[in-house]
């Protein structure tokens, strides 16, 4: 297998794609308010005309780069570039005040590299095992898999279960626009030829994540400027490597667990890793006052998540975080459907993605070192210019998908919807899950019924389907119980 992966490095443009993606990710992550998912969503239209493997490598590498990029403003200006970098602010900025900004940035980069490699190993080991049942999947099993994917909506709706479910149903409704998968009739197209093929998930993602953020940022103040001379990266010495090993391991293990959990993601894992690193540290008193371990643990955790969050997405086709949902959009625009069959039908893409992620982690160290000056230059630009250029990028990129200004209008519409959802505190990911999984659930549910002559027991007679539905029920029940307990705690 390793010889195949090594060969891919030289036969496909994986290396430039990985370096380009990491560079884009670092730039995006360094801009406060621009999350990894937004950075990826901005890049998504560009990948439309590329071959699938370099396109997906570029998107996944953006995720890797953005997780590191978020730590740059967190350390230098006490403003996390991404939510996941919020835990890095505590000790990273304290180190900067002590004149150790370069050391903090070096620890962040080095720990991100370690966490990323750890996550990649887990990704390779777990994903192939999960997808080994690929050929046994029937339409009933695929429908049940979609239901399992939708059941995670309950755990993604921490603030309000009802609003999360509403967002999921809205996503399912959007997925019904276009041609009916069984009869070929047009549904909700209102005689518009542009809607015949439905609303591409990419437009929903660019609108919800990128354009709505642009709208939100339009009302926010600018960020602090950074003097350039204060940012020279200094990598840790061997003595420091030894000290950082335990917090990096803690971060990597927590990142692995949180990465595969629906809704876990980099933010939760980095805070958990910070707390656990403090608990197990011999230098507890340094935490909060510039502890190197306080930078290493969260950075290792959020970079581990950049790989492990892909496990449920690749093996089951279920995105567990916003960033993996955008990467799923990248698969869909190339006609690839993540899930069990992907490993059988497009193993070359998966191998390319693994190779690309390894390259991306190496590239992060090199590009991260070289990109410090451009990042600081970018963060120091006047905010009105940055907003205007991001708007121009979105308008041009969305048009490029199918040379359609109608699509630009649809993406703007989803931007407004995303803004309204933020106002009403509705989560995005349930809607994206609904849009992405809706077609799979409906088409396979109806095909399974056609094949069984309308017998709904087919979903329980098929072993895989029954197993997945049982897991979905357990998942849903667990989430409901947790919601009820949270509610009771809040009342008491």
């Amino acid at each position, binding site marked *: 297998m390793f010889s195949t992966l090594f060969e891919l490095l030289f036969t496909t443009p994986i290396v430039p794609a990985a370096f380009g993606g990491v560079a884009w990710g670092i730039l995006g992550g360094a801009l406060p308010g621009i999350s990894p998912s937004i950075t990826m969503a901005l890049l998504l239209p*560009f990948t439309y*005309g590329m071959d699938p493997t370099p396109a997906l490598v570029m998107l996944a590498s953006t995720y890797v780069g953005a997780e590191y990029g978020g730590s740059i403003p967190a350390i230098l200006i006490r403003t996390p570039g991404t939510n996941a970098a919020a835990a890095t602010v505590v000790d990273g900025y304290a180190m900067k005040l002590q004149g150790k900004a370069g050391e903090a940035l070096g620890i962040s980069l080095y720990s991100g590299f370690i966490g990323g490699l750890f996550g990649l190993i887990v990704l390779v080991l777990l994903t192939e095992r999960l997808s080994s049942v690929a050929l046994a999947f029937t339409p009933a099993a695929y429908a049940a898999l979609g239901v399992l994917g939708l059941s995670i909506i309950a755990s993604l709706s921490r603030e*309000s279960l*009802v*609003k999360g*479910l*509403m967002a999921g*149903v*809205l996503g*399912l*409704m959007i997925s*019904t626009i276009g041609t*009916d998968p*069984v*009869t*070929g*009739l047009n*549904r*909700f197209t209102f005689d518009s030829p542009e809607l015949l093929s439905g609303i591409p998930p990419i437009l929903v993602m660019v609108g919800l994540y990128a354009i709505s953020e*642009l*709208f939100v940022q*339009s*009302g926010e103040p600018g960020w602090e400027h950074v003097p350039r001379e204060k940012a020279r990266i200094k990598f840790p010495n061997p003595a420091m490597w030894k000290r950082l090993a335990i917090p990096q391991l803690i971060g990597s293990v927590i990142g692995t667990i949180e990465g595969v959990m629906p809704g876990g993601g980099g933010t939760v894992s980095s805070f958990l890793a910070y707390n656990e690193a403090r608990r197990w540290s011999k230098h507890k008193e340094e935490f909060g006052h510039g502890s190197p371990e306080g930078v290493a643990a969260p950075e290792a955790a959020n970079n581990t998540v950049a790989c492990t969050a892909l496990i449920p997405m690749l093996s089951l086709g279920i995105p567990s975080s916003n960033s993996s949902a955008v990467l799923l959009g990248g698969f869909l625009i190339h006609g690839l459907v993540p899930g069990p069959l992907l490993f059988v039908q497009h193993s070359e893409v998966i191998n390319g993605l693994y190779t690309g992620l390894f390259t991306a982690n190496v590239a992060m160290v090199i590009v991260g070192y070289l990109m410090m000056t451009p990042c600081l230059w970018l963060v120091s630009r*006047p*905010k*009105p*210019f940055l*907003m*205007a*250029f991001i*708007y*121009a*990028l979105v*308008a*041009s990129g969305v*048009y*490029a998908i199918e*040379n359609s*200004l109608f699509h*630009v*209008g649809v993406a*703007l519409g989803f*931007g*407004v919807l995303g*803004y309204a959802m933020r*106002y*009403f*505190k*509705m989560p995005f990911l349930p809607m994206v899950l609904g849009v992405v999984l809706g077609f799979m659930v*409906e088409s396979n*549910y*109806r095909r399974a*019924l*056609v094949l069984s002559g*309308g017998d709904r027991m087919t979903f329980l007679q098929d072993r895989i389907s029954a197993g997945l539905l049982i897991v979905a029920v357990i998942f849903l029940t667990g989430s409901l119980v947790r919601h009820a307990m949270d509610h009771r705690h809040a009342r008491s």
Partner: protein
Amino acid sequence: MNRDFALGSLMLMVAGSYYAAATLIPESQLADAVGPQGLPRSYAVVLALLSLVLIGQSRWRVHKDEDTESSHSSRALWRVGGMLLIGVLYIVAAPWIGYIPALAALIMVTTYYQGGLINRRVALVSVSGAVFFWLLFVVLLGIPQPAGFWPSLF
């Protein structure tokens, strides 16, 4: 009226409209047991039920923070409306005046709207930005952008 009540009412209207639209989907002789209307109708019913639950919840939950946020929200809504209008004007203008002038205008107007100035420097940056995006998309990536009336002149 609190925010959850407003959302619940809005979603109830969406569910009703969607259900009405679903009933207009024609019958097909190829239809299976569920049919093309089956799941859309179910989704509408589920959304309506969830909306009623949210409306019910909103009646007995106290929302302390909403009054203080309302004035900020109306200002923010105006800003979003302006940004949206800029995007819509780009969509309308690009097929007529072409990609580079429309994009330069979008960059310049957005910069001004975000608190920047309109002067020679901003105009230069806007035109340079539009040319940069044209080089990137059209020349480097080979992806066409709206040409406008320019090709008819030559």
